[in-house]
């Protein structure tokens, strides 16, 4: 069953001056537990598409259905709550909160969602151990390596048990070893928690590990390949 479905989604920037069609009629669906990479050259619309299905931006045309609910009709406040409850984000630049420790960065989202202290403690420990950064739990982001920061960012994205994780070029700033470790861990989470994970990337190492590859060009899907199929 499709967790996410985009139906003829368009996104045009500056429609009244110099229109830029970032996404041009994408229709695609993602099932629960998918491990998908959206690939394509820079400017092909990968990040914009992730933003659209992640509720960060609204399409200029078309629908984005999450569990059959059209999120493009939600108000800004509803969108914010929707993101908090349903989506985990991983950014290229990690974007951890600098004044919080690794532990607090992960616990932060759960606190917003009013999880109990006990649940937070158990979940954060589990995630930081899974991401192999438990020993760094009291350290602030500026003392962590890039790989460690990105693993904490993934732990943060998973903290609230989201329906899916959107990772925008998460390995772009990582070396091979860190990339390999991160992908192993995300695979593990994908399999153990059945979390849908969608990457945007042009990293070959991510493409190799993805079970589905969607290739974009000029805002359109030019190839949709299920590797196991």
């Amino acid at each position, binding site marked *: 069953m499709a967790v996410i479905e985009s139906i003829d989604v368009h996104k045009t920037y500056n429609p009244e001056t110099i229109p830029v069609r970032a996404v041009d009629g994408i229709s695609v669906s993602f099932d629960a537990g998918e491990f998908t990479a959206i690939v394509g050259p820079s400017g092909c619309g990968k990040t914009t598409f992730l933003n659209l299905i992640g509720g960060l931006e609204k399409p200029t045309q078309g629908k984005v259905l999450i569990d059959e609910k059209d999120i493009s009709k939600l108000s800004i406040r509803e969108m*914010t709550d929707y993101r908090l409850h349903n989506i985990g984000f991983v950014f290229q630049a990690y*974007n951890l909160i600098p004044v919080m420790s690794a532990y607090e960065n992960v616990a932060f989202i759960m606190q917003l969602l009013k999880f109990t202290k006990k649940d937070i403690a158990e979940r954060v420990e589990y995630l930081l151990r899974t991401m192999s950064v438990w020993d760094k739990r009291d350290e602030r982001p500026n003392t962590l390596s890039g790989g460690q920061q990105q693993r904490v960012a993934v732990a943060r994205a998973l903290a609230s048990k989201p329906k899916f994780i959107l990772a925008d070029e998460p390995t772009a700033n990582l070396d091979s070893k860190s990339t390999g470790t991160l992908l192993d861990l995300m695979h593990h989470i994908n399999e153990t928690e059945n979390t849908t994970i969608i990457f945007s990337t042009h990293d070959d190492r991510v493409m190799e590990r993805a079970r589905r590859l969607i290739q974009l060009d000029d805002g359109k899907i030019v190839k949709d390949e299920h590797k196991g199929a």
Partner: protein
Amino acid sequence: MKQTLIFAWRNLWRNKRRTLITISSIVFAVIIASFMRGMQLGSYDKMLNDAIKSTTGHLSIMDKDFWESKTLINSLEYTVELDSLIASDPSLSIRAPQISSGCLASSGRNTRGVLIMGVDPEVEDQRSGLKGKIVEGAYLSEEGSGVVIGGMLAKYLHLKVGDSLVVLGQGYMGMTAAAELEVTGIFDHPMSMIDKRFIYVNLNTARDLFFMEGRLTSVDLVLKDYNDLDVTMDKYISALDTTVYDVRSWKSMNKVLLQQIESDNFFGIIIIGILYLVIGFGIFGTVLMMVMERKREFSVMMALGLRPGRLVRIVLAETIMMGMIGALIGLALSFPVIYYFHLNPIPITGENAEFYREFNLEPILEVAIKPVSLFWQFLIVLILSIVAAIGPVNSISKFNFVSIIRGRE
């Protein structure tokens, strides 16, 4: 809430130098403002104590026509009812019955217009500390007809203790009031008007001189707590027959002083306002920087599902913390300074001292300790912090966080 406060506290110290500079500017402003305000309020207290307490009192009860026409015909009969009303009032610290009338005082070839003040010696000492100002001879006594005069008057009339002076004026019902009185004491009063023009006698001497048996020109009242002025005045107005008596506050009896206090207070507040305005812009700049340099961080937090309102609360908490720290340190540092100068008033010398004396004021600068005023400094900084934060925090909700995260802004 706790999480917001912890978060805000840590954010505050991300840029220690900037935070410390901003806090220092607040501390500086609070110290200056507290001290300036303390001096202002101290000088008003001084005016109320010197000029009011020792001349008109906070309130004065007199005949309804006396204020307009200060002749002894318009004196009041000091009835038992009036005496018991005043005597039983617990809000009063001093009840000063008096007979005052203008006369000519003469000695040898010199004559000067003076004000004869018939007073209760003990009460007068309470209200003006006159006994302590005696530099030659002795203070007034309940009995006898001796007078005490100021050093400047004594010098003008070439009088010393033991000499006599002649007073000539008009008594009650137009009778001639004349007497030769012995100078028993000479005082040195900081208020030049009193030093030059006042002759103090006891009430009995004044009654005899002016034929005022059972009568007074006024009863001056000094309150224990100045804040009770309006309430006490209303109380006397309702208790007394206003077709016979007039109850006046010092504000109507000394309008020049009142205007002086009001205008000084106004300009003092304007100066403190300008000082705080400058500091307010400093706080504004700091908060603006705090928000702008964290645009990306805030954008990520919003992307993760944090409502802008929560971010606004965090930044507001940071600003309020900064303001509170500055205000509390400022108050803590200013208090010892204010306390020192409260105990050790600054003497004024030279021409400025003369200026003070012309206004019947003792030439010293006192600094008042007013907890309410200090609390106001704290509150002003707090409000200033919130107001300074409004613009920057308002911009948070207008962030295009997607563009910011993607590095387009």
